[in-house]
């Protein structure tokens, strides 16, 4: 109906000209009229094709009448509605089987994690993101599983290029912490460096600014909660497996006396190349009265590079952390197996090759070499009571990721450890796994 009115209006507007004596002008009007009829039919057909295209109707008529030189685009409203008010669900999961070659009796199968994520757009600029995770299949008073909120933050875009986040968010360090879905990494298990040194998935309650530039630089700076050194357990192995993993708080009634600062900078100006790094620092005594390490400060820094030319994928990362003022605290831990390290570090280099590809499927063999040390140095103690550095662990992982499609992966690998450490599960082993994300 609206088109008919438009056509009539346009014809009426053109009528005085048509009454002129110029025959050419008359012919032009006739041509325009024919064009309008044709466009009207076209619009009707577009309507039939897509209800969402309804608001597009006025534009074709506008094209016919547009003066030379004026572009007449359709309004953005012709696209299907998106953004504001929308809610989306996503998820990923991972199941693994580990079989130590020397201790077959310790072979284990585990539903490592199942995650449901969601986001909701309150308006075009404001969203909430959340991820809820189940680890090890069952969580109850008698079981080893855990249920955790892995992320829950609000994000508000202040401009197309930058915005602010607030809530429980992943610390933007390394390549795995923020992109930890099983389809995103090679091998059944996540790499050791970004588990033992950067405790993926490491999150803090924080407020952060993020943004990107047209030159390919993306940045992220924030302030938030910090680990709690008071939670260090010198009798347990956790501190040796991952110093920060054993004292992170995950916003669970977190002690919040101390404020952390973190930042990350990445450059992706050349397609296929990623160069970046990040740092995190905080006092971690949390103001506990009479705490022997009341000035303890954590500093963790990392640098990474990834190069994905064609069917190859090369990456490397180095991370190093220090915790200061631990001498007096470790003195109280004398005789215990796990003092607080003064320094810990790790690095890896990895190469993968998309060797075969058919349809949506692909076969990607890979190899990764890692070195890491969760107790590379300890604060010196009087009378030679100090702890000796731990041996550096060296791990080779070789295997294949078979992608049934880009979102479903089957994995097999073999891991060779330089030093066996049964308490931490370090020993040569075969791994099998499946993973997905949607």
């Amino acid at each position: 109906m609206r088109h008919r009115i438009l056509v009539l209006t346009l014809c009426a507007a053109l009528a005085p000209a048509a009454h002129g004596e110029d025959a050419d002008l008359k012919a032009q009007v006739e041509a325009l009229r024919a064009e309008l009829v044709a466009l009207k039919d076209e619009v009707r057909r577009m309507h039939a094709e897509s209800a969402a295209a309804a608001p597009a109707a006025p534009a074709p008529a506008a094209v016919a009448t547009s003066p030379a030189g004026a572009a007449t685009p359709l309004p953005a409203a012709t696209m299907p509605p998106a953004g504001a008010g929308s809610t989306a669900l996503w998820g990923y999961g991972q199941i693994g089987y580990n079989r130590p070659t020397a201790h077959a009796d310790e072979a284990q199968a585990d539903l490592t994690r199942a995650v449901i994520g969601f986001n909701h757009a309150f308006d075009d600029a404001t969203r909430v993101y959340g991820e809820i995770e189940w680890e090890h299949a069952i969580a109850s008073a008698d079981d080893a599983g855990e249920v955790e909120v892995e992320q829950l933050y609000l994000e508000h875009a202040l401009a197309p290029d930058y915005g602010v986040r607030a809530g429980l968010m992943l610390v933007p360090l390394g390549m795995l912490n923020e992109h930890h879905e099983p389809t995103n990494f090679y091998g059944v298990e996540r790499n050791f460096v970004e588990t033992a040194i950067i405790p993926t998935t490491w999150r803090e309650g924080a407020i952060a600014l993020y943004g990107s530039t047209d030159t390919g630089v993306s940045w992220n700076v924030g302030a938030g909660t910090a680990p709690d050194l008071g939670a260090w357990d010198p009798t347990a192995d956790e501190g040796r497996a991952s110093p920060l993993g054993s004292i992170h708080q995950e916003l669970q009634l977190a002690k919040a006396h101390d404020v952390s600062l973190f930042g990350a900078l990445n450059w992706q100006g050349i397609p296929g190349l990623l160069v970046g790094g990040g740092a995190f620092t905080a006092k971690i005594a949390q103001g506990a009265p009479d705490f022997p390490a009341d000035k303890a400060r954590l500093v963790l820094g990392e640098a990474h590079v990834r190069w994905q030319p064609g069917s190859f994928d090369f990456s490397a990362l180095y991370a190093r952390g220090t915790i200061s003022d631990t001498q007096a605290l470790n003195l109280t831990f004398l005789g215990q197996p796990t003092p607080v390290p003064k320094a810990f570090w790790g690095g890896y280099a990895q190469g993968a090759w998309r060797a075969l590809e058919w349809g949506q499927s692909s076969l990607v063999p890979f190899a990764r070499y890692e070195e890491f040390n969760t107790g590379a140095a300890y604060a010196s103690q009087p009378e030679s009571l100090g702890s000796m550095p731990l041996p550096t662990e060296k791990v080779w992982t070789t295997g294949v990721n078979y992608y049934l499609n880009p979102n479903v992966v089957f994995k097999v690998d073999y891991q060779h450890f330089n030093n066996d450490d049964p308490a931490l599960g370090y020993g040569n082993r075969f791994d099998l796994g499946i993973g997905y994300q949607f």
Partner: protein
Amino acid sequence: MNVRWLLPLVAAPVAQVAYAAQYMTIEQAQRAAFPDANAFAAIALDKAASGVPAAPPGWSPKVWQARAGERSLGWLLVDQVIGKSELITYAVAIDSRGALISVEVLEYRESHGGEIRLAGWRKQFVGKTAADAVELNKDIRNISGATLSCRHVTEGVQRLLLAGREILRRDGSEIPAHGNG
């Protein structure tokens, strides 16, 4: 009456909200790709005849023909794909011979993966035609951390190139004859 002066105060944040995810309007994309055009005519894409394999359900890109007088300069196709969980609106400009002129990201709403807006990444598509592979990790390089967005936009561009080829076959590079619907 006495609260009318408040209107600009209300309008300012509303305007900011409405365009926070929008990097470019369709009109800006049209002018950037076809600076010599003096009109953009909406063209219906006949899906049944489009011959585009693996088109998702509800796929209905909007198409405009860029015109300079009676000459066709090419087409601007605007489509949406899902990045990880939200829609990315993007525009592909194709010249009158079917070769890609530019890819522009009009709207990006996700928390991560916005690096697909980088000029360097989008430039990889320039010159591609429907005869090219246009596949991620083959002739289009990935952006680490934005894999899903890269993959889905790449697949979308490939579909639009095929759609462009069909329009070219149907209409040729001339202004379509009128009166035949």
